[in-house]
């Protein structure tokens, strides 16, 4: 390469505020083989890209370095730009002088300017030895795995099936519906959760493109975007669902009762139970832990009463293997356990319940048939205290983040409480009230006025039993006074946390999570529904707390991203993968063992190692592990990397760094 161009971006003031871009442009222009060097305020903009394209055309450039932000931001942008001028995109390299220079050296103009020059020089050195590469293609399996059957998974599945793609929807619980199936009415328009969920469930049931696998776990995921091989373990239900007619006799006759998770402990369920009560609950499963047949053999009542002969105590688990091209992770949320909060009674005061439990109480299909009753004695409560930000926004002891839904659902619950128990007075302890979406603030203000809610600003210090009441000690920080209340019931808006086992699933998918277990997105603004692991898409509360509206929007976004991916006939992949020098390779097989992507395999005939280019992600593990330097990474060969290091060490003459 003899005709190189350097383009230095100001990034507004992000770079130019710290780095003397004019001086860098001038210095780079003096390097041998650099025939064009200029700076511009926003190189990624249309006129900025035009500068690059014009220079390629007018000056016959055969290599381009853009000194700007991180390649994860705009490498693709600039490679597309040079390609449109007929240049091989892999002859365009990014020198990161923003994240790795200007942002970390603010206030050190002289040194930052020097470092920016060094970074660009080193990239020029690398570019000099770049090869012309062609994009790799690999087959694409146009089928999707959706993990989680809540409203996020359901929405993504329906959207994808509507677009014509096959969907496998897996759910851990015995039936789909997720948290939404536990809710009563939803804010801000008070739509019944069942009216949102019901039609969608029906759509899923009747769509031949969607295969629902309930009561299962994703056990293993191999392969990559375009071709994931997944193994799904279906837990034994001990009921033959093909024969079962969901008549419900077994549920009636089963003698074993234990607390129902679905009802948040407000009611019991039998050892044989369905995912959700009510008409659309689906077929039952037997809980092996509590069923008497499995604990002391003599009970077989369900088998005796089943007219269809559907009970099968000997049913084993089933392994299902499928190949899919993309995966939507919609694993949902749980509420922070009350049992961990000492000052609110460790979950041991019966009349202190969490928000989801109160939703069950408000729900017409719930344990009280929608009546508001104190769990302890069934009385209709009068003084009801709601406490917001329980375990949320508490970085010292619990979760530092805002759970985003509690302010709105508390106002909604207080409203519904007043409607169902008109004599009740809701008191709401809050820190701030956050109503961050369309129509929310209006809903809140209207509810406060119409339902005569009393909002008290301050965290509650203590909640304890006092006779048959629950005494609440708090403070109203707006009047600076201690507040004492004898409540009949207390409802805790506990923090939204990722559902149990999220970290295991994330590990199986090689997706990343933050320290709280929420799945991380590739970029919060540029790629908000994509995991950094390609082919994995994120929807719903598994990615972070959010309401139904945002969840549905996010789920539809994943579906449209997957449709864009599936609109191609083959999958295009960067050719920046490992390759083997067959002359040097000794066939030791270390690379095969270290490769995390199963992209390396031994050629048993030639006794050397090979690279499956479609699987290789260019991570470089094999290159570091190879004892005799037979493995190299395309366009990051050892010679190139050493050349870059030498620039920094000053071993290469500054004036000849480019040549």
């Amino acid at each position, binding site marked *: 390469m003899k005709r190189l161009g350097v383009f230095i971006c100001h990034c507004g003031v992000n770079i130019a505020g710290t780095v003397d871009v004019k001086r860098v442009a001038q210095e780079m222009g003096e390097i041998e083989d650099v025939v064009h060097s200029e700076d511009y305020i926003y190189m990624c903009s249309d006129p900025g890209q035009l500068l690059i394209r014009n220079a390629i055309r007018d000056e016959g450039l055969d290599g381009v370095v853009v000194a700007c932000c991180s390649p994860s931001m705009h490498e693709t942008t600039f490679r597309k730009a040079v390609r449109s001028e007929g240049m091989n995109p892999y002859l365009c390299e990014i020198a990161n002088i923003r994240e790795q220079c200007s942002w970390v050296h603010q206030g050190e103009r002289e040194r930052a300017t020097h470092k920016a020059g060094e970074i660009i020089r080193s990239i020029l050195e690398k570019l000099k030895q770049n090869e012309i590469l062609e994009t790799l293609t690999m087959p694409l399996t146009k089928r999707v795995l959706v993990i989680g059957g809540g409203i996020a998974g359901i929405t993504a599945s329906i959207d994808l099936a509507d677009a014509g793609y096959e969907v496998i929807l897996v759910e851990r619980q015995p039936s789909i519906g997720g948290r939404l199936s536990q809710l009563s009415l939803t804010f801000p328009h008070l739509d019944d959760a069942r009216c949102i969920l019901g039609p969608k469930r029906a759509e899923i049931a009747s769509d031949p493109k969607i295969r629902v696998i309930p009561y299962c776990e994703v056990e293993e995921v191999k392969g990559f975007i375009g071709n994931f091989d997944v193994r799904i373990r279906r837990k034994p239900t001990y009921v033959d669902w093909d024969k079962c007619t969901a008549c419900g006799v077994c549920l009636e006759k089963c003698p074993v009762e234990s607390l129902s998770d679905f009802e948040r402990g407000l009611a019991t369920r039998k050892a044989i139970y369905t995912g959700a009560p009510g008409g659309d609950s689906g077929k039952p499963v037997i809980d092996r832990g509590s069923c008497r047949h499995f604990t002391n053999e003599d009970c077989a009542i369900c088998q005796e009463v089943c007219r269809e002969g559907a009970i099968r105590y000997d049913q084993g688990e089933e392994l299902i293997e499928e190949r899919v091209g993309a995966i939507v992770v919609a694993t949902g949320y749980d509420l922070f356990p009350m049992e961990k909060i000492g000052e609110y009674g460790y979950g041991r005061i019966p009349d202190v319940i969490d928000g989801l439990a109160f939703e069950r109480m408000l729900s017409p299909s719930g344990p009280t048939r929608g009546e508001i009753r104190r769990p302890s004695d069934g009385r209709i409560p009068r*003084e009801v205290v709601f406490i917001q930000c329980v375990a949320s926004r508490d970085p010292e002891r619990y979760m530092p983040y805002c759970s985003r839904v509690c302010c709105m659902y508390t106002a909604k619950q207080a409203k519904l409480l007043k409607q169902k128990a008109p004599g009740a007075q809701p008191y709401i302890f809050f820190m701030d009230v956050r109503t961050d979406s369309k129509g929310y603030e209006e809903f809140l203000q209207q509810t406060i006025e119409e339902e005569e*809610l009393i909002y008290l600003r301050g965290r509650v210090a203590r909640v304890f039993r006092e006779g048959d009441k629950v005494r609440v000690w708090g403070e*109203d920080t707006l009047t*600076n*006074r201690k*507040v*004492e*209340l*004898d409540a009949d019931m207390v409802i805790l808006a506990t923090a939204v946390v990722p559902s149990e086992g999220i970290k295991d699933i994330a590990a199986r998918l090689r997706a990343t999570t933050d320290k709280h277990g929420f799945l991380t997105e590739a970029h919060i603004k540029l790629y908000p529904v994509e995991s950094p692991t390609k082919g994995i898409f994120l929807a719903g509360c598994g990615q972070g707390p959010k309401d139904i509206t945002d969840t549905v929007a996010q789920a539809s976004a994943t579906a449209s991203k997957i449709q864009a991916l599936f609109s191609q006939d083959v999958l295009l992949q960067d050719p920046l993968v490992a390759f083997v020098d067959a002359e040097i390779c000794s066939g030791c097989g270390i690379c095969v063992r270290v490769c995390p992507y199963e992209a390396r395999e031994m050629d048993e005939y030639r006794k050397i190692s090979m690279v499956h280019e479609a699987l290789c992600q260019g991570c470089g593990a094999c290159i570091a592990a190879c004892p005799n330097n037979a493995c190299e990474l395309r366009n990051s060969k050892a010679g190139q990397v050493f050349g870059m290091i030498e620039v920094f060490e000053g071993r290469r003459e500054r004036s000849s760094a480019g040549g």
Partner: protein
Amino acid sequence: MDEGTTSITLSEGEGTRAFLQEAQDRCGQSLRLCYQCLKCTAGCPTAPYMDFNPNTIVRMIQLGLKQEVLESKAIWLCVSCETCGTRCPNEIDIGVLMDALREMSLEKGYRAHEANIVALHHAFMESIRRFGRVHEATMLMEYKLRSRDLWTDLVPGMKLFMKGKIPLIPGRIKGMKAIREMYRKTQRKAGAEKK
């Protein structure tokens, strides 16, 4: 400021709500709408002298702190400039509320912390009742007697008198009949409400 000393017991919802309801009915304002932005207090010229800021008064009404509100200095220090009501994002006219609170305080015989201000109000109203307009000499006299503060402002008062600004003979207006009728009606209404 004497905040933070008393604790509130909110165990009877009815009791908490009763004062709020009464205050709302009296002033015709939706006091529940207050979200404590403090715009009223920020613009209030007398807030620095009040024991409770205007926003705190609204808050105390929401929490049913009847005695403290009706005995507060704040309700008497309000000069009804209406800056609060003009700026309130929830259209709560605190000036009108303060008026209502003053009425309630007097009707129910609460101890007025700013007795002199009450005395001035009475002297003013009495003067209007008698003459249909303010007659400074008799009004000041009445105020002095009511407040038992005979010496304050005596020197400037004398100066004004010397310049003829405080006429001895009260002037009368034409519509005295109408004024008397107004007093009669409002007093009857207030009397009816008391019962």
